């Protein structure tokens, strides 16, 4: 029906695109060009020494390997989860459904802290085991291992599988399975010949998405895997900031971009017609209470695993951050000593007289400031892009995928590119790190567009037509009809942009300034410095960030709910 909006001219289309394209051109494509240029690939091809090839191939193989393992295990937990959540009603289902959004917003540093507080050497489980069995050293050494990375990835991506596959499963006509049964297929044959083939597109789409996320994962690998494991993304960071081998870093970035874009293209191909919402509407389902016994047992098992993955790390973090701290003593008896705010109060004391000491409230302030600026950058750009995408113009077919590119390229590459492109310009030399919210904006922009766009597309064309016939001009239609209907997605996308900025870590590691640290940077500093106090402060700071993020989630769900009630 888009051709019915014949009122727009090519000039209006260009006017709408101008600013967003300019923004992306300066802050995404120029840095990208810098990377390509510095890698020297066009001048003399990939001229790498044998040692350098090894430095590229090793992390690349590992990246692919860990992504495959993570994806397979994520599917193993996600698909049963999708089945239970989309088919049954039970107490707590709404809570789990609401919690599905958590990993989308929770920063990697917080997740790292969560797992650290649960399974780390000073974590809840280890301390508990040491207390019970009077052990001298922590029995579980999961942190800084391959499985810690996998665990982090499963935490992050299970909800994605549940959302995509659950949505498809929930929408599947139950009469398909019923017909198969009546036609003589038993339960197993029905699953094999009907259910699984029909779910294949959604499983494939979610696997690819999960694979892309695992492939470009930075924070989880850096913070949970430790120095022994480097994915391409981490290796770029190490080469650029520690080895100072910028050429190798850019070559890796280039390989990374090509691979993610290839995967994203495949995803775009298979995801056609797949949709999911962050707060799923899954059908009511049958009561789990009255289901047959084996189904009940299976579902309860799945729910227990989901609970362990989604909630215990969060609970452990909060508990650990409030476990009493006794200065000078050894580990002490955790969790039984009552709640204490000592780690929180410690955040305000500069014990080591560090030059770079920044009071944590300043980090919170910095983070909130950057997040606000990010919203002010992305929202107008996002609205302009969405309005432009509505116009029936051929140019959209080229520009639409282009604006999604920053989502496909990694945050570390983004940070590196911005640094390379602007470190000699006035933009970098001013004291305020203005590139930081710009980088956050680049990461958030595609999300903002993809949240607002379906909402604007869902407004019936006849609404605008009716308003026009009733005497409203184009501007009044926009102001009085369409904008009020877009209020909810605009709020949701703003909160999303805000949270993305709050937790962004990859690009921030390149662009932050010592005097303007953000919360994730402060947590990273605490986590990478030894000592009980640093550890406790990391937990406390992570809890603060987690609370901020959960507040965002509540805001999103509250808006979503009021919007649904209005409908």
């Amino acid at each position: 029906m888009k051709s019915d909006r014949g009122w727009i001219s090519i000039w209006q289309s260009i006017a709408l695109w101008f600013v967003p394209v300019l923004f992306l051109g300066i802050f995404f494509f120029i840095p990208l060009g810098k990377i390509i240029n510095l890698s020297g690939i066009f001048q003399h091809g990939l001229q790498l020494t044998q040692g350098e090839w090894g430095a590229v191939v090793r992390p690349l193989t590992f990246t692919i390997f860990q992504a495959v393992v993570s994806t397979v295990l994520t599917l193993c937990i996600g698909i049963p989860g999708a089945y239970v959540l989309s088919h049954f009603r039970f107490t707590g289902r709404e809570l789990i459904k609401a919690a599905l959004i958590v990993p989308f917003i929770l920063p990697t540093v917080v997740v790292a802290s969560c797992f650290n507080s649960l399974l780390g050497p000073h974590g809840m489980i280890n301390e508990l085991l040491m207390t019970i069995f009077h052990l001298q050293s922590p029995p579980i050494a999961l942190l800084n291992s391959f499985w810690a990375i996998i665990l982090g990835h499963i935490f992050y991506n299970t909800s994605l599988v549940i959302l995509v596959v659950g949505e498809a499963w929930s929408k599947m006509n139950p009469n398909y399975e019923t017909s198969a049964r009546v036609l003589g297929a038993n339960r197993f044959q029905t699953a094999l010949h009907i259910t699984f083939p029909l779910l294949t597109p959604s499983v494939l789409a979610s696997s690819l998405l999960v694979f892309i996320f695992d492939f470009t994962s930075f924070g989880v690998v850096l913070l949970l895997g430790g120095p022994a494991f480097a994915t391409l993304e981490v290796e770029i960071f190490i080469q650029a900031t520690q080895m100072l081998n910028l050429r190798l870093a850019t070559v890796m970035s280039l390989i990374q971009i090509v691979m993610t874009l290839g995967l994203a293209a495949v995803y775009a191909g298979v995801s056609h017609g797949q949709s999911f919402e962050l707060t799923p509407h899954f059908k009511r389902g049958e009561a789990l209470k009255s289901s047959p016994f084996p189904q009940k047992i299976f579902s309860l098992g799945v729910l227990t695993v989901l609970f362990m993955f989604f909630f215990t790390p969060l609970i452990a973090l909060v508990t650990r951050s409030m476990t009493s701290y006794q200065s000078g003593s050894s580990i002490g008896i955790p969790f039984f000593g009552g709640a204490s705010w000592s780690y929180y109060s410690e955040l305000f004391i500069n014990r080591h007289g560090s030059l770079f000491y920044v009071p944590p409230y300043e980090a919170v302030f910095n983070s909130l400031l950057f997040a606000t600026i990010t919203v002010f950058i992305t929202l107008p750009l996002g609205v302009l892009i969405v309005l432009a995408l509505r116009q029936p113009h051929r140019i959209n077919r080229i520009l639409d995928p282009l604006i999604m590119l920053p989502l496909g390229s990694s945050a570390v590459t983004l940070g590196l590119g911005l640094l390379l492109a602007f470190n000699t310009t006035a933009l970098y030399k001013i004291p305020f790190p203005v590139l930081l919210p710009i980088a956050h904006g680049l990461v958030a922009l595609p999300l903002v567009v993809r949240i607002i766009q379906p909402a604007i597309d869902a407004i019936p064309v006849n609404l605008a037509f009716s308003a026009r016939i009733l005497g409203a001009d184009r501007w009044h239609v926009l102001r009085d009809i369409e904008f009020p209907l877009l209020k909810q997605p605009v709020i949701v996308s703003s909160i999303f942009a805000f949270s993305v900025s709050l937790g962004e870590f990859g690009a921030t590691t390149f662009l932050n300034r010592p005097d303007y640290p953000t919360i994730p940077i402060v947590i990273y500093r605490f986590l990478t410095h030894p000592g009980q106090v640093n550890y406790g402060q990391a937990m406390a700071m992570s809890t603060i960030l987690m609370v901020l993020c959960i507040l965002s989630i509540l805001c999103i769900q509250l808006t979503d709910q009021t919007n649904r009630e209005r409908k």
Partner: protein
Amino acid sequence: MKQNTSARTALKVDKLVKFYEGNPLLNGLSFIVGPEEIVCLLGPSGSGKSTLLRIIAGLEPFERGSVTWQGNDLLKVPPELRSFGLMFQDYALFPHLNVFENVAFGLRMQHISETTITQRVNRALERVGMLGFAKRKVQKLSGGEQQRIALARTLAPEPKMIMLDEPLGALDRKLREQLTQEIRQILRTTGVPAIYVTHDQEEAFTLADRILVLSNGRTSQIGSPEDLYNHPATSWMANFLGLGNVIKGVVLSIQPLIVRTVLGDIRCPPQRLKQSVDANIIILIRPDGVEIAHKGKNSFRGVVEDCVFQGDHYRTVIRVTGESFVFNLPDKHLPGNEVILTINEEKVIFLK
């Protein structure tokens, strides 16, 4: 109707009780289906028609009662071993399989040879007039075509009984009329019993050997289409089937039988049921139960409210002392005009 011997009974549903969210959806429902008999389940939406089919198919548990096939209880028989066919209103054609594979699905489950499968699929497709469509994608078919494929898929495994759940509900009127005839033809030639769920009484009247009207989880009436039309048991049935004007009255005299109604005192044909004077009764006057007259017995005066051309008659709404009645009259009458109508006493039916 003495079909209750197992030799003449294919399916027997006995005192079936099914609760839905704490309320009885089926409340002691009993009926039988004879071999080669087509039974139509007619009832308002939400009366539990589709649930009943799912229970018979073995897809839904129930609280009490029994479902037996040729005397054998089906309770422990899973749906795939019952060999019944069930066709849905939305057809539920498997979207990832083409027409041939859809029709072949039930046959593949029987592990028969590929040559036999091909033969039988082709035969089923031929039966529904879709032979050339084997390689098509099901999503590319029109509603009518999908309906035929779904029917072919149901027929191909040669089920012992066929159940159809509003199979024409999603189609437009003209196609529906055409397909009703075709389904009737096909069901007759298969020679197996069939249960056909619909809310459209025209469909039910065309197809059924017997019609079972469901209301409030029970059988409201069961009988041949003629039975239901000529002897609706209750005023609810008469209203539900839209048989005519349902009017309350009081018996004035027995010999001759005269009833006082809002239309005046009406002389009625003698009834088998004994009526007593002053008894409150309900009568049904069919739309074609009156003719234009000037005066005489059984006549009443009314004002024309509306008059609509319907082909072979005018559907005329007549207002009499504040109430409206619908009659089919041969001529046009302008709204506002007064008419005098005589009730044909042969067309007055007593209801419970």
